[in-house]
């Protein structure tokens, strides 16, 4: 199964889902569906989050499992936190309460 991408390869803008289908009953839904925060991360960033959860949120354990250093893992986690915060901010601007 291919991975979803969240940015337009042409202009870099955020993509939205316009069509979804159920492979079991063949129902197709069309509309404007927003990607969740995690789907808007890159595949590597999403996989980082998965590994982080699997390591029970322990940076030390994650570093040990992946064979990298603690500061390397911590630095990427900080990058992802900043990115998630930026995405949340963008979402607030796109859809104010």
């Amino acid at each position, binding site marked *: *199964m*291919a*991975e*979803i*991408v969240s940015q*337009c*390869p042409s202009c870099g803008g955020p*993509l939205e889902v316009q069509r979804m289908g159920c492979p079991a009953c063949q129902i197709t839904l069309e509309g404007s569906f927003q990607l969740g925060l995690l789907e808007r991360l890159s*595949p*590597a*960033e*999403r*996989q*980082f989050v*998965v*590994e982080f959860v699997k390591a029970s949120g322990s*940076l030390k354990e994650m570093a040990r*499992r*992946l*064979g*990298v*250093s*603690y*500061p*390397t*893992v*911590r*630095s*990427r986690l*900080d990058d992802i936190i900043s990115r998630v915060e930026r995405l949340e901010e963008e979402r607030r601007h796109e859809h104010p309460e």
Partner: protein
Amino acid sequence: MSTRNETGPEAVQQYLRADEPRGWMLLVNPFRRIEGLRALLLGLLVVADTVLVAVYGGIAYDGVADLHVPPHPLPPSFLALLPVTAWLIAAAVLGLAGWLFSRSRQRVVDYLGMVAVARFPMALLGVLLLPSLLGRYLEPINRLLEQNPPDLLQRLLHPPGLAALALLSLISVILVLWTAALTYFALLEASGMSKGRALVVFLGAALVAEVLSKLALIPLALALGLG
């Protein structure tokens, strides 16, 4: 829109390693490889080396990124305490600065270990300044300062072994700058701050640590009865 599945632990490893320093950058930022307990153990070796060099070479490590060869011999116990004090003050001040200005997860062991490892060029400079090595070129200058002749300035401008002294000065400047760069990257990696913020915080913290390490000389001297 979809793309080929390129995820998995290997993809995360690649993603993580893309951010690590390589090549000559490892000379100033080895702290993605030397961190945690490993940094502390290596750092303790560096500190032990500075203590030995201080005691046997009569060298005073009385600052964060500087050292002096005093013209008059100082007690070995005082000289031995100086590098340990300077290291602990630098680690404490940088750690406090990191705690105040970074919101990232931080570990005390990184500050203690990385700051000690960052003192490696100072340890190297101390070895070079041993009297049996380049330190012998400083002896005539120390003798002059002790004698304090009327034409002291003139004679200091043309000391014996001028070329060796110039070389020693150049090496000293390079090693001091190397120490400063290593200490900056120690703060960057231990605190997880952004590079720009870490630079500003480093400049302030280094100044505070330098002043505190000089002020610490007074209670140290009093505690050892040096009045």
